[in-house]
């Protein structure tokens, strides 16, 4: 089991050991003092950490987060990381994202389409340490490849692939193989793991740019 990043700890909430970060609660999660529980059932990155994947996260990184939705996961990321760019395409969840950003001075919400990096390349800095991607759209590998331009040479891509977004009718494992193949055009895959314990038909991928 790999080390948790600084700022993420296992703490006891109501008698159970859970991942936690320090920050204002966002989605009604249990709190203990300034710590709040990180629910791996609602967060793919939370599941990747819970399953012991080697994310390479240490704490304090500059992060580009694609598919921030209502800010459930990205709020935890902003709790332990440095400057965090949160890209979300839909207006309704972005409203919740703004609320999560309220108490987090280094969380930058952006209402942009992750498939069009040119629309935010004038805002997001180059050489970020980590790109985290959780977008429910077809062509998830392509999104990761197009956003590789933001990543530092020794940076990490943390990707949650949702099989049902690519094609509901096909076997998830076949879809995952395809995504892995396509991803190999720009990334070296370091680790993959099914997240089914927490998220049905999702694959967690850790990769670094080629």
């Amino acid at each position, binding site marked *: 089991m790999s080390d948790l990043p600084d700022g993420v700890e296992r703490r006891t909430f109501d008698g159970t050991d859970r991942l936690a970060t320090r920050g204002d609660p966002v989605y009604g999660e249990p709190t203990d003092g300034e710590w709040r529980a990180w629910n791996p059932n609602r967060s793919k990155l939370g599941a990747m950490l819970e399953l012991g994947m080697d994310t390479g996260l240490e704490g304090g990184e500059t992060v580009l987060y694609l598919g921030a*939705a*209502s800010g459930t996961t990205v709020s935890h990321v902003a709790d332990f990381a440095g*400057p965090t760019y949160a890209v979300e*395409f*839909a*207006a*309704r*969840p*972005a*409203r919740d*994202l*703004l609320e999560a*950003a309220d108490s987090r*001075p*280094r*969380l*930058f*919400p*952006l*209402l942009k389409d992750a498939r069009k*990096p*040119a*629309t935010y*390349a*004038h*805002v*997001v*800095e*180059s*050489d970020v340490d980590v790109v985290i991607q959780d977008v*429910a*759209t*077809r062509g998830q590998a392509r999104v990761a490849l197009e956003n590789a*331009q*933001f990543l530092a040479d020794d940076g990490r891509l943390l990707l949650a692939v949702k099989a*049902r*977004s690519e*094609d*509901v*009718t096909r076997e998830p494992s076949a879809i995952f193989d395809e995504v892995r193949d396509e991803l190999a055009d720009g990334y070296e895959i370091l680790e993959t793991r099914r997240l089914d314990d927490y998220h049905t038909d999702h694959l967690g991928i850790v990769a670094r740019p080629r």
Partner: protein
Amino acid sequence: MTDSTPADDGWFAGADSDEPETAATAVRDGTADEPRDWPALAVESGFADDRDDYYDALRAATTAATAAAVTEREGADDRQLVHAVRAMDDCTRTANELAERLAEWAGTVDPDAGTGVDYARELAARDEPPAGQKPLVSLAERVVSLAEEADDLREYVERQTPTVAPNLAALAGPVLAARLLSLAGGLEELAKKPSGTVQVLGAEDALFAHLRGHAPSPKHGIIYTHDAVRGTHPDERGSAARALAGKLAIAARVDHYSGERKPELDAELEDRIETIQARTDDGGDGDE
């Protein structure tokens, strides 16, 4: 790009850290071919004193930009859509009624008179109507402008529905989606209806006749206009309507409670309808 400085592409170019409005607009509308070390460039160009100062300004600009964009996108609300689709139907109905009246009148003076809105268009386009037919042509002009108004409203509905209810619009088509919103009274109301109710929205007369006990239950309401129902063999239309209503109910809930587009819903519906239609295509040995 070589003769300008790299900082010119950044969101902060031309903005002053004291002018949050300009900066927010630049965040919303700007583009760049590639990312750069914006924090360093901003400090270099004098926009910010140091990295912390830069990030403070960035935070203010991105928050303002996102808040404005969210308000604007959400301002296209379901109530507006409900009014628009009702007005569209009123215009269409009234245009047709007046066109009928016109045809009846025109038949008395012109043995070759046609019918419908098309005939009204033809009549309205006549340059010099014979004396005595002026009122007729004037009425035709009213019919035509009502029909045009209906077309404009349809365009508005087609443009706005995907913003208000992206999943519902994708599954049902924008106009049917807007009609469902109108029948339910709004997106929240539709999101709270069980799929069985969505299935018979628009068939209230038939439903109440059934509840009073002297009619079979209606298989479908307004969703009959959807290809998934109309394109299915009559024996299987009940199944198709049930499947479609189920997905539409889910789409409305996703649109109301989350607002995120879920393309997998489209595929699930397509898949389900194909299965149902296949029962009759290959001789009806229908199990699933």
